């Protein structure tokens, strides 16, 4: 029996300033996979996630989450943006940032209460950051900041998690901690989609992979399609492992 499709992308074309970065992408992500999106710099990996989440408006094509448009399904989706996308000198604490994960289910105007705080503390515990809950976020290390972001997504208690380079600039301990949490999420039947740039770790961390370079090259189980042929197609003949997007 086929698995349920968690995310379906049809004919998606996205452009920045009308310069296309993603071309006619068709993608089906089955429920319960831990998937890496890989590709060279400028391949549109982050763009794909942002377009799926409605942060960027596509020129053509459509996205559905469990068969319905994103707008109707946002509560099923959590997002971990790139760490560098925010100002870490912002006057707020770790706990406060994690609490932001509850804002979506609260909706407009309603304030977070005890229930939300409890959920945030639990998420902090899960990522091993409970002792740092009162810390100003700029006083956390890069790895700790990334864990805070992960905790914020965990609080959303979603079915599908999108993460943009969660291993970028983190220490080895954090990387292991994060991947363990991701594997736990998969075990719980969640779908996790990660923009990833370290090809070495793909077979070890993930069970599903999508090769992307402006258009989709291949998608499927790691054991079937993670091979030289697809790597060469994605990265070209002068194949190099890219540092970051």
């Amino acid at each position, binding site marked *: 029996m086929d698995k349920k499709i968690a995310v379906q992308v*049809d*004919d998606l*074309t996205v*452009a920045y300033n*009308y*310069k*296309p970065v993603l*071309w*006619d992408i*068709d993608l089906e992500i089955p429920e319960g996979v831990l998937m890496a999106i890989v590709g060279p710099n400028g391949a549109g990996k982050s763009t794909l996630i942002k377009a799926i989440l409605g942060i960027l408006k596509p*020129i*053509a*094509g*459509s996205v559905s989450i469990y068969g319905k448009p994103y707008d109707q399904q946002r509560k099923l989706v959590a997002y971990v943006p790139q760490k560098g996308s925010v100002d870490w*000198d912002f006057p707020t604490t770790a706990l406060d940032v994690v609490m932001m994960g509850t804002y979506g289910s609260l909706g407009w105007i309603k304030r977070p209460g005890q229930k939300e705080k409890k959920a945030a503390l639990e998420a902090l515990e899960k990522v091993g950051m409970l002792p740092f809950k009162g810390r100003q976020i700029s006083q956390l290390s890069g790895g700790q900041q990334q864990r805070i972001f992960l905790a914020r997504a965990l609080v959303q208690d979603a079915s599908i998690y999108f993460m943009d380079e969660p291993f970028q600039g983190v220490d080895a301990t954090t990387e292991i901690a994060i991947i363990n949490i991701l594997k736990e999420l998969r075990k719980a039947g969640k779908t996790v989609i990660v923009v990833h740039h370290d090809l070495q770790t793909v077979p070890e961390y993930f069970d599903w992979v999508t090769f992307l*370079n*402006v*258009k989709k090259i291949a998608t499927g189980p790691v054991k079937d399609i993670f091979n030289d042929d697809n790597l060469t197609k994605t990265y*070209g003949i002068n194949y190099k492992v890219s540092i970051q997007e």
Partner: protein
Amino acid sequence: MNNAQIEIQLIASLVAVACAIPGTFLVLRKMAMISDAISHSILPGLVIGFFITQDLNSPFLILLAALTGVITVVLVERIQKTGLVKEDTAIGLVFPALFSIGVILIAKNANDVHLDVDAVLLGELAFAPFDRLMIAGADVGPKSLWIIGTILSMTIGLLIAFFKELKISTFDAGLAASLGFSPALIHYGLMTVASVTTVGAFDAVGAILVVALMIAPAASAYLLTTNLKKMLGLAISFGVFSAISGYWLAHWLDASIAGSITTMLGLLFLIIYLFAPSKGLIAVMYREKQQRTEVSLLTFLLHLKNHSETRERHVNHLQEHINWQKVRAKTVLDLALKNNMIIIDNNIVSLTQKGDEFTSKAINYIITNEDAQIEDMKDDFFLFRG
């Protein structure tokens, strides 16, 4: 035209040229707001200098005020380095404070200082011809003309001498440093020139309008060309044009000359902003519209290439599946038909030979970003230009 009128226009034009040169580099180096900061914060230097020299046109006073300008830049940079506030906040904190000190100094010594706050903001170009420079009893022209003339010739001298260094450090600071040109030296050199020019122009056009003369001509020129020499030339001509036409506007309206010059600069910028051939608003909007159509066309062609199933290639699929709202499917279909890229048979769309080749080439270009292969396509498609 009488003599005074000619002299005023001459002074205004020289000020415009003297401002346009450093202004061009400030705009290119994304430091336009520094000129705003300098123009405000030289005020206390000017007032203190006046206490010492008692002469608004003394070279010593000009240097002292210019030094305040450079100090401002250093102060802003020091505050930025502490990391206590963001970069632009540092600028926004420093210059109002220094300007306020200047205004208060003037107000507290109103009887001794023949500076008036209105003149600080507006300058007194209309009175410039009355303050003459006498050498050995002979009248050699208005003092401001000599001052700004001296500053301008120094600026031009420096520009010619260091043009190469300025150019490299502006476009590639890293390269400049590796070639042995200290970016810091060029940076502070430019700041010094900007400060001296501001002080020299201050007397004529006032604090805030110096900013206009520095930024507006350069910004207008930048919308027309990216060639540095052409940009400098255009900025200078825009400055001079606004100076002279602004003078006559002021004459006609009987209003402030500096205000009129700025208004002319504003009108000039507005016209260029709207109508510049490739970077103006109208051109940009037209291009975006074209690109939208072309991207849709390519998406459509690519879709045809990727899918051999007839269901995916049915005409109705365009509306149903690809979900185009921005561009009507018909426009795209017509465009493709007109270019002989597709044939429609029984409502099933197929690529022609030409369409197939075109799509392969286009997608190849998009992935590799190599220009050479698509030279012949550039004429037909906006998408592949620039």
